[in-house]
């Protein structure tokens, strides 16, 4: 359980996030914040898969699956957005369960390689099927989400400010759910599976089921992020979820720190806005990410979270000494 003080701090921070568009109604910054939130959903859901000891480089593919599902559900089937959003999550989870049955049996580097192949297969699948996925151009003119609260009152989420709230809400729910999983016995069993898999297995933990659950739940949240992505940018194409997007999600986890949800959140806040502020150097983004990754591994192997914890420990260690001297 979270101690009381921390709960209030998180609550205060969440409320502060609700006021950002009012305090700071700048389109450019809101755009950066929205992409950061989307990346947080993706990075944290990938963190859950990493927590079971599996490094997937197909995570962005699930986002693509969610994006296409949502776009087609709204445009072809005429489903309301409030149904298309969970549907895209479920689609991500179903595909994760289908491929997970095979993939999750693979150990170590073989798993990494096959997830790479799977990500490419998904991308090529969408590239080659012009009907109904639009081939290499993807799907354009995706309508903005229309949300019917009561019959007759429909909000169209068109402005950046309203979209900010939609993404914020989904992100907070995602973070709450994943944090809750981490605190429960499920999360603890995931830690056991990652640290010493055979011991976990021989003490009654169904390690395969743990990995399956993390992979499916990860696919679900990535699917949600994909739906939000598609309706925000109003298009989805195979270029939106390449291998590099998956790699970026891993870099975010490594740079932020992989222990819990805080690491990938910090990593997203640091890495997503970075290229936005270096507009003239977009082509150097991968070089920059690579450089940051090397520097992180060299100087702070536990990521930003590790450094933060060290600073906190240092401050805690100083406090009693001060009290003793006065």
């Amino acid at each position, binding site marked *: 359980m979270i101690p009381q003080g921390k709960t209030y701090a998180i609550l205060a921070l969440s409320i502060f996030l609700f006021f950002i568009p009012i305090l700071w109604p700048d389109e450019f910054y809101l755009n950066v914040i929205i992409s950061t939130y989307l990346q947080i959903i993706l990075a944290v859901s990938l963190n859950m898969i990493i927590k079971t000891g599996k490094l997937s480089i197909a995570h962005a593919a699930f986002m693509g699956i969610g994006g296409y599902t949502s776009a087609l559900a709204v445009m072809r089937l005429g489903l309301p957005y409030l149904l298309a959003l969970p549907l895209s999550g479920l689609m991500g989870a179903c595909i994760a369960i289908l491929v997970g049955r095979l993939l999750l049996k693979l150990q170590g580097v073989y798993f990494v390689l096959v997830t790479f192949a799977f990500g490419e297969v998904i991308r090529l699948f969408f590239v080659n099927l012009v009907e109904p996925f639009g081939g290499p151009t993807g799907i354009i003119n995706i309508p903005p989400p229309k949300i019917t609260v009561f019959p007759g009152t429909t909000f169209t989420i068109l402005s950046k400010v309203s979209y900010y709230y939609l993404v914020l809400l989904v992100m907070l729910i995602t973070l709450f759910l994943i944090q809750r999983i981490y605190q429960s016995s499920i999360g603890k069993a995931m830690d056991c599976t990652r640290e010493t898999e*055979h011991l976990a297995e021989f003490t009654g933990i169904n390690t395969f089921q743990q990995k399956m659950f993390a992979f499916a739940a990860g696919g679900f949240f990535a699917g949600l992020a994909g739906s939000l992505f598609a309706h925000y940018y109003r298009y989805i194409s195979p270029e939106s979820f390449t291998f590099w997007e998956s790699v970026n999600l891993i870099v975010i986890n490594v740079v932020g720190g992989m222990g819990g949800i805080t690491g990938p959140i910090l990593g997203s806040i640091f890495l997503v806005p970075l290229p936005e502020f270096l507009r003239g150097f977009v082509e150097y983004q991968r070089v920059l990410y690579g450089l940051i990754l090397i520097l992180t591994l060299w100087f702070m192997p536990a990521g930003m979270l590790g450094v933060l914890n060290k600073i906190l420990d240092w401050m805690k260690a100083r406090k009693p000494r001060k009290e003793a001297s006065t």
Partner: protein
Amino acid sequence: MAVNQVTFSVRQGEIFGTIGPNGAGKTTLLNLISNMYVPNSGKILYRERNIVGYPPNAIAKSGLVRTFQSTVSYGESTVWENMMRAQLGYHFLGLWPEFLITRAVRERRKVQTEKAEALLQFLGLESLRDSQAKALPYGYQKLLGLAIALAGDPQLIMLDEPAAGLNHDERLHLMSAIQKINQNGVTVILVEHDMKVVMGLCHQILVLNYGQMIALGAPSDIQRNEEVIKAYLGEDPELA
């Protein structure tokens, strides 16, 4: 072939020893029973049910728990955390109750806390509860491995060379612990190199050599068996 044509049965409530020279296939035998490896042919009956092919976690949950020859624990965690983690796999109440942390889950945690406490006391580890597992002296790491196995409330416990690397006092401590576990109604299969431990504890002994079974019987019979002496005991001047 690591183990071939081995047939034996373990009676409920006994301590069953398995001995043999290095490479005889003792650990392989345990790996087969705990389903770490799947045998090419043959059956493993546990409570009249063939358990070949079951996943190891299901075997552990059915009351057949093993330890490992090397020290195996969650190294970064404390002894106490290890004891709590060791119980995670058992009495899992399903995804929803676990996710919601229902009352039943909290009740179970309370029971598990008590059990962890009792087990640490039983093995004399309670003063080390806040030590990091990988920082423990070797003997205590082995005891922690035993405690982790006992956390699953086994009906049958398989110990893979529990005395290896222990000093004299630690060995005596371990032997009395195994005896106490057995007196509580737990059947024990013991794979061991140390003859004194095996001869002192076991009711029945299986001798393996090159993956073949060469003798099976009470300790006194085994000590007199000529083939065993030739294959194994002959090398040990104390017992020859």
